[in-house]
């Protein structure tokens, strides 16, 4: 069965490491839905979170192939464990004077913030799991979305789960 998975990859913070990882996905026909990279808790190491889709066998191959990269130190399939996943989106939505209170209250419901107001639009910042971002977007669509930028998912296991 094909399902979505978030995979966290601890890598050496080397030039070219993103290329190695993303190249491996492309070359072996694995799909990347989103990819985020940034610092980890340890100096010299970065953490990547990749959201991908595949059945169990594909996922097993992804993990094993990743481990073949010398710069990959640890691979964790977050989706198999209790985890917290978040992404951030900035949404520039058309907003005439009259619509602003409505949009503001939508944003409030999602605990999103209005971070900028233009003459005819507003910028909303939302943080949450993918579903929440999707849901807010769905509601904002009728007003007219002018620009959208999503970060992709970053994630971590809960508590002591490793």
């Amino acid at each position: 069965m094909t399902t979505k998975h978030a995979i966290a990859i601890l890598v050496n913070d080397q030039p070219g490491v993103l290329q190695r990882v993303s190249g491996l996905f492309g070359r072996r026909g694995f799909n990347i839905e989103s990819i985020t990279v940034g610092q980890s808790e340890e100096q010299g190491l970065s953490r990547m979170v990749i959201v991908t889709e595949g059945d169990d066998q594909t996922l097993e191959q992804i993990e094993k192939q990743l481990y073949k990269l010398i710069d990959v130190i640890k691979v964790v399939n977050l989706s198999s464990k209790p985890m917290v996943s978040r992404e951030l989106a900035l949404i520039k939505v058309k907003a005439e004077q009259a619509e602003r209170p409505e949009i503001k209250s939508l944003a409030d419901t999602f605990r999103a913030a209005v971070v900028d107001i233009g003459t005819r639009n507003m910028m909303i910042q939302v943080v949450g799991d993918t579903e929440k971002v999707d849901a807010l977007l769905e509601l904002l669509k009728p007003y007219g979305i002018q620009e959208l930028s999503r970060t992709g998912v970053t994630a971590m296991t809960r508590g002591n789960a490793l």
Partner: protein
Amino acid sequence: MKPEVITGSEILLRSLLLEGVECVFGYPGGAVLYIYDALYGFKDFHHLLTRHEQGAIHAADGYARASGKVGVCIATSGPGATNLVTGIATAYMDSVPLVVITGNVHQSLIGTDAFQEADITGITMPITKHSYLVRDVKDLPRIIHEAFHIANSGRKGPVLIDIPKDVSAATTLFEPAKVMNLRGYNPTVAPNRLQLDKVAAAIQEASQPVILAGGGVVYSGGHEELLQFAETTEIPVTTTLLGLGGFPSGNRLWMGMPGMHGTYTANNAIQQSDLLICIGARFDDRVTGKLDGFAPKAKIVHIDIDPAEIGKNVHTDIPVVGDVKTVLEQLNKLIKRADKADAWRDQIQQWKAEKPFKYKDSNDSLKPQWVIEMLNETTHGEAIVTTDVGQHQMWTAQYYKFNQPRSWITSGGLGTMGFGFPSAIGAQMAHPDRLVISINGDGGMQMCSQELAICAINKIPVKIVVINNQVLGMVRQWQELIYENRYSHIDLSGSPDFVKLAEAYGVKGLRATNKEDAQAVWREALETPGPVLVEFVVDKQENVYPMVTQGSTIDQMLMGDCE
């Protein structure tokens, strides 16, 4: 060694020496001029100047396969480096340990499309085990030390070190690297004991067991352990193309090679097996044929150093991750004879007797199979044999009888034409006292023939065989059998006179067109010191049989002359 301030180039050479390098194949150019300057008058290891970078890397590959050591080659930036790509991919596909050193432009020019700049680490990322772009001369000793370790441990493979010109020129205090800190690299060598118990139990259960052994047996040095494993369990053995020599071909348990041009016995045995023990092989499609329908009744054991190979192509029931030699050593303490398999053993012997490789010999023309048989007989199967790619490669795999590991060198995974001849030069450098024969088609011989110069100048006594059928034989075979005799662009007329070509380089050339001459010229070649090229002009119509066409399971063989 006293710490000293020296250049990156000198650090490179000294580090290579510390890694035990005896022989390097290379080609100079602008970006490696500092390195070649340091090589001026350098005598501590051999540097062979090939005539093409492709020759250099295939030679380094042949050296590595024949010796078990790391092969090393050097090329300049840009076109020099890109000329290595085919050779790097060849080594990667066959898990051959290489350290490939390329020069690059000055760091300040990297990324500017500078003269002779190529992003060689980027280009080769999918075909190297690992790669380095050296940014600081201080990192060089560590990087070289790591590169050799990575290349020749775990699943072996090529490692590239790209050295910008300013790094090879820069100076620093040289302290040899001793410690290694590769957190992300810990190959599993020792297997899990529980898995071994499962294998031992499965052997007791099996009534139709088969061992499928591959290149991993040769690379791990586990051939003796394999022999012991087979003799104790008395399970019949088939060896893949790269596994040839990993098990003695004369052994009664040996069934020959499986797959597309494998034996009737090996292919049927795999298909009917109830236990298939795959050791250091990766279920390549040339071995499995149509995957859906491969070994349909078998419980599958897969022993491999690379966990990513397990379950990649074929579902595995008992995975064992570890070094083949170590695994077999431990397994050999747990196993007994497979007692339920007596009827199976009889069946195998019957198949072997009924359906060996066969061809229709002729007294008017030379048959390529006959030529290979003659080479085998006159050398008692003891030479190191390299081949190029095509029909001659398959005939050599079928008719030459290998009894020792590392005596068979061929491009299996990538199937690289042009590999056969330069790889023999490398093999001969590794074993100056052994007889090295390089068997080539008339097509592939023309892909690296310029290296005849290297043989002549350095008196490298390779016996170069050209099986001349005047066509791209393997392509002709496919066109005959699958494309209804539409012989599109396979005619090699216009090929050089190979005897004259050899002589033009100062290599002795001989030719035979019938059996009598063939025996005579081959005897002359063997008696002549130094390199000799022998051309055997053979029947152009011959096909390699059996053959499993694509999309068939491996027991659906076209038997041709083997009928």
